[in-house]
């Protein structure tokens, strides 16, 4: 395996978050947070519970509109991005509480991830003819590669609602991958998993990054896993950025240690 600790040559900035502040009513979720994500890296956003990690992801994804600050994605400011536009522009994500179509099969779920890749007109596609059918075949082939990649052949035809949690997480990753994202946002990909499942998921994340060259931004509160797989790490605490750097730097950062050990804030 490649040594994840060694710094790799970093690519262009694909996503820049600049001075983001977000509040719900009087509660400040994020205060003046800035960082960037570079092409091809695995970028982690960590922090104790309630640090504002999910809020950050939801801002990038367009679910929340920050009151202040800008998010620049591939050179364009996306302050007004809607979640549908985010998907269309190459950002795919998974959710902490798995948002799969429970009644549909694994295959169908991942196929829905291809919807935005369809070049024929969405309305005309309803008439399942010639080009639409060929496109469907191409999409199916792509999805089969993902199924093979994630080693979920055995559950291809099973409604995802019947699958155990760890597998659902994997299917959701598959659906996100089906969109061939430029930027993949993972919201606590290992939450609620046992050690073995975490190891599997870590391997898949590394493999996705390696095999497809996908840039990955992930939120996680399990520090250990993050240290092993991330290129660079942002640490949030109480909505503020308290550290940013490669795993070794973050590990040694006094502020991070205090935040995680729960030392009282001044």
């Amino acid at each position, binding site marked *: 395996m490649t040594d994840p600790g060694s710094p790799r040559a970093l690519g262009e900035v694909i996503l820049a978050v600049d001075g983001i502040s977000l509040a719900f009513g009087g509660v400040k979720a994020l205060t003046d947070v800035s960082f960037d994500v570079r092409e091809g890296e695995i970028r982690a956003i960590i922090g104790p519970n309630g640090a504002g990690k999910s809020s950050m992801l939801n801002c990038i994804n367009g679910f929340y509109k920050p009151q202040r600050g800008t998010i620049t994605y591939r050179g364009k400011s996306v302050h007004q991005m809607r*979640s*549908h536009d985010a998907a269309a522009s190459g950002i795919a994500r998974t959710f902490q509480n798995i*948002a799969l179509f*429970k009644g549909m099969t694994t295959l169908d*779920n991942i196929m*829905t*991830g291809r919807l935005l890749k369809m070049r024929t007109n*969405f309305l005309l596609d*309803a008439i399942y003819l010639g080009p639409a059918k060929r496109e469907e075949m191409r999409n199916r082939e792509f999805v089969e590669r993902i199924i093979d990649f994630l080693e979920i052949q055995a559950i291809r035809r099973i409604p995802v609602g019947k699958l155990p949690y760890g597998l659902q997480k994997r299917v959701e990753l598959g659906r996100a991958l089906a969109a061939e994202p430029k930027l993949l946002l993972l919201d606590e990909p290992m939450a609620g998993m046992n050690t073995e499942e975490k190891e599997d998921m870590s391997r898949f994340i590394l493999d996705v990054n390696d095999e497809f060259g996908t840039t990955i931004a992930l939120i996680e509160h399990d520090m250990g896993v993050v240290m092993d797989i991330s290129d660079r790490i942002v640490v949030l605490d109480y909505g503020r950025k308290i550290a940013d750097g490669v795993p070794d730097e973050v590990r040694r950062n006094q502020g991070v240690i205090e935040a995680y050990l729960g030392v009282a804030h001044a």
Partner: protein
Amino acid sequence: MEFLYAITIGPFVQIAQDPQFFLEVLVGGLLSGVLYSLVALGYVLIYKASGVFNYSQGILVLFAALTLVGLIEKGVPIWLAALLTILVTTAVAFAVERLVLRPLVNQAQIILFMATIGISFFLEGLGQIMWGANVRTLDLGLPSGPFIVGGVLIQKFDLVAAVTAGVLVTVLALFFQKTAVGRALRAVADDHQAALSVGIPLKQIWIIVWTVAGLVALVAGVMWGTNLGVQFSLALVALRALPVLILGGFTSVPGAIVGGLIVGAAEKVGEVYWGPALGGAIEDWIAYVLALIFLLFRPQGLFGERIIERV
């Protein structure tokens, strides 16, 4: 005593005495049930895609039939009239999405339900303004009259209606299972939020669903209109599909189809064999009684999603 006999044993004796006639009644009932299935299907489609019980489905049936008849009366050739009617229903779908659903997105279901009541009043009024309130006959030149298969008398028209409905249902089933759009529709029906996050355009989905529901309504309207004449009571007949939904379950396409067949058969068989003892015209309420029984013993319907309470 006599009454008890007439409702418990008598009918079965009659059935046993002349099974051929019973078969005839049954087949007639099943075939007419096909139309209930179609209307119920319209309800199910919209319910699945948006979680809304669309009160205006009945008016949609009437409105589609009315438009078709009106156009034909104006001397438009039948094929062109059919095409134009399809365009009009599509336009209605667009308008409903743009003017009603989009502004009300994320509102409570009851509000959306009220909105569909509004839509039905609007369409009813629009239909009257455009085409007047007279009863019209609809004659598309569909075959009529009886023919006999294996000693059983069957109405040609019923058969045509059943075949048409069968084809429509098959096409819809293929559309849902095999195409990308069908998959998107199922995804939306399954989980709105998740559908949004993978970038499924909800608006387009709604337009498609309402268009399809309109198409189904058109077919139902044509068939019924041919039988009963195109008039405003058609919209009320459509409400007879409600028991079908309770039987079949609100979320199940096969349920809508089977439920329709059961209601159709129960109406005809009930009327012929039990009607005399109960004073006749039971055709009008027997479906509701069936629905009531179902609500007591199987509230999720025949094929509805099982309601499982886990402790």
